[in-house]
């Protein structure tokens, strides 16, 4: 069971029910559960969307698109049924926040799904969990069944005359499916290959109907916003970045864990105070601030607020909120190699720059890290990554290229140190099968 952590600097909105037994529907109701849905039914779609817009909530999956605006893009009239699709394919390395939401607060996900459905005029929602999260799927399924038993789902929900159904759905192992159009393909029973946009899902989505796709954290936040009030929620965060979010802090820190911090919270404080600083009294070497696809920051670059805009200005991204901390004994070439090994494994192979680029990067970095590098490799790595950027249908190509470019740019000396047949002095992998190109 994942350990829950706590720190006085946290503002617990989304995580307020964690550890309180809220998987039980009665307990959930006692903790203000299903209050937001009743309000949403009473006040109607326009009110819901206005509140979501005023809350400043931006998509927690990584792109940071304003949620209220996303919901408002769905056409009011549609010949085809409209759908809500909850993205719980959490697979970005460094990110484990949705894991806790499903574990501790499954009804918040259900409520958020109903609220999104009410807002756009949909009668059906899907909650898609990655295949590895089977025990969490079981928790979600029980919660959905309990909600049906109470009449919160199905026909005439809460006696409102409105119908809403939820189907929980398991994936079967695929990072790429976290991309919204690939997610729809997967839910339609196909390979998770991205679709060409436009049309955007809000117009032509799942089964060809208008679809709202939100990250599980975004969806689970919606009921909290309606209950506490959009204005109050917005004020917790920073400018144009409403509220709080869950930050998964991992790697070389004293107290790793998932912490709920206000948007705009200092990255330095998150590492040194909330997570207790670098472990074993060591010095900080690097921070990957928003999941493995976000460009690395150096120790003198962490005086930045954790929101979408400030992180963008700092040359990186807030991403999925997965903060990975590396101490001064980490080999950044190896870190870059492990990162690219992941993207090579996960590339769906549809776009050539991504399929070939990740493969060549993995081969080059593998040889390079094992001591077989030559000087021109460093520029070649950069060249390969640069030629993937912006040249693929979905963001996976960029997700692989961006961090690679960051590692080469910010740790060039460390790459140089691996030259002339010198194998890495502190290899964590050190496994023979990674030492050669295959």
């Amino acid at each position, binding site marked *: 069971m994942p350990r829950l952590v706590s720190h006085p600097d946290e503002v617990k909105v989304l995580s307020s029910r964690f550890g309180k037994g809220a998987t039980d529907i009665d307990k959930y109701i006692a903790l203000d559960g299903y209050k937001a849905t009743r309000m949403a039914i009473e006040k109607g779609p326009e009110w819901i969307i206005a509140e979501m817009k005023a809350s400043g909530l931006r998509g927690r999956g990584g792109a940071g698109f304003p949620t209220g605006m996303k919901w408002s893009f769905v056409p009011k009239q549609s010949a085809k049924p409209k759908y809500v699709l909850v993205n719980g394919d959490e697979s970005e390395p460094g990110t484990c926040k949705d894991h806790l939401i499903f574990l501790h607060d499954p009804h918040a996900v259900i409520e958020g799904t109903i609220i999104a459905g009410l807002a756009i005029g949909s009668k059906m929602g899907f909650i898609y969990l990655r*295949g590895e999260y089977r025990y969490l799927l079981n928790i979600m399924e029980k919660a959905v069944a309990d909600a049906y038993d109470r009449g919160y789902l199905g026909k005439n929900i809460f006696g409102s005359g409105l119908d809403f159904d939820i189907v929980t759905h398991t994936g079967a192992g695929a990072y790429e499916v976290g991309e919204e159009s690939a997610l729809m393909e997967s839910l339609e029973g196909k390979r998770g290959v991205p679709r060409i946009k436009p049309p955007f899902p809000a117009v032509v989505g799942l089964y060809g109907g208008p679809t709202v796709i939100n990250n599980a954290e975004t969806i689970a936040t919606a009921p909290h916003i309606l209950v506490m009030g959009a204005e109050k929620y917005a004020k917790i965060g920073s400018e144009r970045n409403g509220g709080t979010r869950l930050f998964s802090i991992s790697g070389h820190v004293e107290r790793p864990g998932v912490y709920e911090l206000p948007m705009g919270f200092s990255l330095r404080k998150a590492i040194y105070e909330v997570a207790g600083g670098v472990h074993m009294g060591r010095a900080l070497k690097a921070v990957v601030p928003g999941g493995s696809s976000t460009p690395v920051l150096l120790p003198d670059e962490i005086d930045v607020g954790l929101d979408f805009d400030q992180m963008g200005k700092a040359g990186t991204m807030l991403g999925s909120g997965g903060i990975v901390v590396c101490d001064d004994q980490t080999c950044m070439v190896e870190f870059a190699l*492990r990162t690219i090994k992941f993207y090579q494994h996960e590339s769906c192979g549809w776009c050539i720059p991504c399929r070939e680029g990740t493969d060549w990067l993995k081969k080059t970095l593998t040889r390079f890290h094992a001591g077989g590098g030559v000087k021109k490799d460093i520029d070649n790595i950069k060249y390969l990554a640069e030629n993937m950027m912006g040249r693929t249908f979905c963001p996976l190509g960029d997700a692989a290229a961006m961090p690679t470019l960051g590692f080469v740019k910010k740790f060039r000396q460390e790459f140089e140190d691996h030259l002339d047949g010198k194998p890495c002095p502190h290899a964590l992998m050190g496994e023979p099968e990674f030492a050669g190109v295959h």
Partner: protein
Amino acid sequence: MSEVTNTIFSPALAARFDKLVTIYPVRRSALVPMLLYAQDEIGYVSDAVVAEVAVRIGINELEVRNVLSYYSLLRTKPVGKHHVQVCTNISCMLKGGYEIFGHCKQRLGIGNKETTPDGEFSLEEVECIGACSWGPAIQVNYDFHDELTIEKLDKVLDKYAKGSKK
């Protein structure tokens, strides 16, 4: 209900599949979950599984295989009774994921994607399993084991080994 007269699945799973194809707007949406649940029961996606799933979904076998090959949890060969999946992605790597993986290899006497001769254990290096803040972490079948040390790992593996003997 089922159009399949000679199912290879248990009555409970067959009944579940009969229902599964009805809960989505299109039948095909049941494909990926059906393959995974079938694998849970049979151990892997065998030719017989592909054949029956194709009939249940109403597509041809080639289309099933096309989808099957995309998803990393789906496999076409058997694994051990206890499938040990070690995450070595960045967060777990920093916390010793490769040491955990190395120890599994040594203790089980098998390499990546191999199975012990008695069929009890199999081992696989996997990508991020979503337990980053609690690394290093592994999954044995669907069960998570986190914040591992070598000692803790040994206890976990002991438990599975003992469970098998009963």
